[in-house]
């Protein structure tokens, strides 16, 4: 739909606001009312690294086929921010609509003949109907929801029931919000031809009624609760903070001991990311499922301890919700630019198991899986999502939990087992998979060993002996190869085509939509989404099976392609990168254009 006209249940609404004016709840109301009709929706928030007064946008895409990437078009623009008006006007797709606050005169210099401009005196209506200054500001947002409801013919009962639920405990606010909806709805009905040629219609589809709206950070935090994580150490950083907030929120609901009222979880807000990672290692070493959540700058600081965790073999889980780098970069914009720095974080021959969820649903399951892998492999596991997955509102299938699930605690010797042993040595690999049984402090005096980041031999003792040292780092590679068989396999779609797309994480929806559109235009392709590092054999097989590979990722430096080149047999002559890295989520149109341009180059040659 990225190149087509809007149609019933297929359109994009963008709202330009000033941050700190209470628009989030109104925008959420609009999105959720579409969701309640059964229409697949996604809400993307383009917000500033600021608390009040700067421009912010919210984009709601409705897509009957369930495409959840950024559409790249704007069918209805609600321009509430005078400062960005010119830019917002320009961003409307030809044939689209712009709604503005007509209380004040519009800049007549700014005109477009190819769109419809609708003026609604939002401020005037609010000033006349609401007594308090605060309500007058907040309710403007709710009034435009009423306007859009009329234009798209959204069932008002749906909005009404959402308001009833939201303000069940604050009935005093209910009437005001309802009035604001009615004001906008009536004004639009009176002054414009409503509804538009395309509307929001009730649809029935599998998943309607059970699907949820969720962001990836909440899902990952919830996954950590279900995995049985008890220790969480963290340092605030956008865009990962809400993952911890999610964990905390659900711990407060589900982890208070019913008898004592005490917490069956321990969250420590650390003084910095170095300390956060140190705490996670201390807790993992001591046998608790422990995790942290951060973003690129935090991973840089945690690298010291990540190397320690790798070498001393301590379970840990780190969520890296990627944002725009380098350096501080753009904290509120998305990117996949920490792939390499995560995979090889820290000095020396260090490498880490990484998982790459593509949406909130996968964030939930991979979050839980990460703890199993960490304890099974006795090593830090990095879960790389990004701001788009982590902080935006996604339609998601209902999450389920298998009641028979038991955590994989890996090889941990019990008191009884130690009692029967004559001697314990920490790094002796008896199973041949590169993983040696460990012991927890306090279990038994025979289980004691000295954990160190300095050179050690298979017995856990300090060494500077060449052979002893090498024996240990070689075994770590055996473990690495074991990991290849344990991490999530890539997901592939299609087979037998000459063209193969390879992508990762949040590129998924845009690539899938692009593939569908290209197929309609006669260009068929296969697709593989990589879900973990180290790469399993399936990844190599997919590369081998295609004459043309497009590696689609959201960074400048082809980091996924580079990683595959380093770790696999990748033929550069048949491999092309499609790179999106301006901080906004990638659109399917971007992928399509890149493929068409490449194919045109090929024909010209």
């Amino acid at each position, binding site marked *: 739909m990225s190149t087509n006209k809007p149609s019933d249940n297929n359109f994009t609404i963008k709202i330009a606001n000033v941050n700190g004016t209470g628009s989030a709840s109104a925008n959420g109301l609009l999105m959720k009312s579409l969701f309640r009709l059964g229409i697949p929706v996604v809400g993307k928030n383009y917000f500033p690294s600021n608390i009040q007064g700067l421009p912010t946008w919210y984009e709601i895409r409705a897509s009957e086929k369930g495409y959840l990437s950024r559409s790249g078009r704007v069918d209805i623009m609600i321009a509430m921010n005078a400062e960005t008006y010119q830019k917002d006007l320009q961003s409307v797709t030809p044939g689209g609509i712009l709604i503005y606050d007509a209380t004040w005169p519009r800049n007549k210099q700014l005109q477009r003949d190819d769109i419809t401009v609708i003026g609604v005196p939002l401020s005037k209506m609010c000033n006349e109907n609401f007594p308090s200054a605060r309500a007058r500001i907040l309710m403007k947002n709710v009034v435009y929801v009423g306007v859009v409801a009329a234009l798209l013919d959204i069932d008002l009962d749906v909005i009404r029931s959402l308001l009833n639920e939201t303000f069940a405990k604050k009935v005093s606010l209910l009437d005001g919000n309802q009035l604001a909806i009615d004001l906008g709805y009536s004004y639009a009905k009176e002054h414009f031809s409503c509804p538009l040629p395309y509307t929001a219609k009730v649809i029935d589809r599998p998943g309607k009624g059970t699907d949820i709206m969720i962001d990836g950070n909440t899902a990952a935090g919830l996954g950590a609760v279900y995995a049985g994580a008890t220790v969480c150490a963290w340092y605030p950083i956008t865009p990962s903070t809400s993952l911890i907030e999610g964990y905390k929120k659900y711990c407060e609901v589900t982890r208070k001991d019913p008898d*004592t009222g005490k917490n069956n979880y321990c969250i420590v807000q650390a003084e910095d990311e170095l300390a956060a990672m*140190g705490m996670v290692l201390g807790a993992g070493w*001591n046998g608790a499922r422990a995790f942290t959540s951060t973003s690129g700058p935090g991973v840089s600081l945690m690298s010291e301890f990540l190397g320690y965790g790798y070498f001393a073999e301590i379970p840990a889980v780190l969520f890296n919700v990627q944002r725009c780098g380098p350096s501080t970069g753009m904290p509120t914009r998305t990117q996949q630019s920490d792939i390499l720095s995560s995979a090889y974080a820290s000095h020396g021959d260090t490498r880490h198991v990484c998982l790459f969820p593509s949406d909130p649903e996968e964030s939930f399951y991979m979050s839980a899986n990460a703890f199993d892998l960490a304890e099974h492999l006795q090593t830090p596991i990095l879960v790389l999502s990004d701001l788009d997955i982590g902080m935006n509102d996604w339609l998601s299938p209902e999450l389920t939990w298998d009641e028979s699930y038991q955590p994989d605690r890996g090889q941990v010797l019990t008191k009884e087992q130690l009692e029967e042993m004559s001697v314990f040595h920490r790094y002796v690999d008896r199973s041949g998979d590169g993983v040696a049984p460990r012991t927890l402090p306090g279990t038994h005096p025979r289980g004691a060993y000295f954990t160190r980041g300095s050179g050690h031999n298979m017995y856990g003792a300090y060494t500077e002996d060449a052979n002893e040292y090498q024996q240990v780092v070689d075994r770590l590679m055996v473990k690495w190869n074991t990991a290849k068989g344990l991490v999530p396999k890539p997901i592939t779609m299609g087979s037998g085509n000459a063209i193969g797309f390879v992508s990762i994480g949040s590129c998924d929806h845009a690539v899938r939509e692009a593939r569908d559109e290209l197929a309609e235009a006669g260009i068929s392709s296969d697709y593989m989404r990589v879900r973990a590092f180290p790469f399993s054999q399936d990844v190599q097989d997919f590369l081998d099976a295609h004459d043309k590979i497009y590696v689609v990722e959201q960074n400048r430096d082809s980091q996924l392609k580079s990683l595959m080149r380093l770790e696999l047999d990748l033929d550069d002559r048949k491999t092309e990168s499609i790179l999106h890295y301006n901080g906004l989520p990638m659109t399917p149109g971007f992928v399509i254009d890149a493929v068409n341009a490449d194919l045109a180059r090929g024909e010209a040659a």
Partner: protein
Amino acid sequence: MSFMKKPTVRHPGLPRNDLGLTVRDYEGGMSTLCAGCGHDAITGAIVQAAHELSIPPHGFAKLSGIGCSSKTPAYFLGASHGFNSCHGRMPSVATGANAANRDLHYIGVSGDGDSLSIGFGQFAHAMRRNVNMLYLVENNGVYGLTKGQFSASADIGSTAKKGEENLQPPIDPCQAALTLGASFVARSFSGDKEQLVPLLKAGLQHRGFGMIDIISPCVTFNDHEGSTKSYSYSRQHFHKAISADFVPPSETIKAQYSEGASMPIELHDGSKIILRKVDGAYDPTDKAAAAIYLRERQSAGEITTGLLYINEAQQEMHDLAGSSDTPMNQIPYERLNPGSDMLKKIQSRMR
């Protein structure tokens, strides 16, 4: 070498503690530090204190950073788990370990470089959280393992081995600890076992962050004339504000102290520290007064030793967090898993 095993021969007459263990059961590997290093004396004091407290050796966890001091956990408590972490990062590892299991006794060993320079932030915040642990700063005023650079605890005017003079003011771990929220602050000298052992025992039984600054001369790089952390300087300039005796719960009744001159402080487990004030005006439960006193003595060129501050009422990290009494690493999964019905319920609010 630390990986060398000590011979396990035991003298049949070695005294046994309440667990039937001798002091040898609390020892570790052979020290690789320089002969005469103050740190080795501290190691010996830790072994003695742990033995006398009759805590099973595997009930301890010992952690350290990087540096000469941080090597020492390999030399004591060989039957305890050890964690030799990154430079200056022991406090965070200890905090996490404690978060996972509140039932163990944690001994953190650090040095002046480890705690007062690269790790000052972590040192400060572990105190602020009042993590329940004994934290030792084995303080020699010098970077020994990298051969003699000044550390942040070097005094103004003190000189390095080759004569270079330190011009920057020192950081006093005790004054920092008082300011930053440690609930047990003490200073001692590696060469004064009589003072050190009771302080170590009290610090281990104290619930909260027990910081002991232990002046520990570096025989190789900082034991010359011009050093203020040498054996001779320390012996001359130490000022005992208060001496401490540690009395375990079982012996409290028969402990001898006269009420007037002594000040008994009861710890959470029922044991007592009997404080005998050398300086009559000193009150180790008054934080503000302790801070003033320390500064006054410092201006007079004296290094105050003894138990400088104690607050048994201050809540430790888990109390503040409302953590369950069962250690986090021992709660069965069945009690951690909210179940699939709860997941349904949670999601009912996401539609």
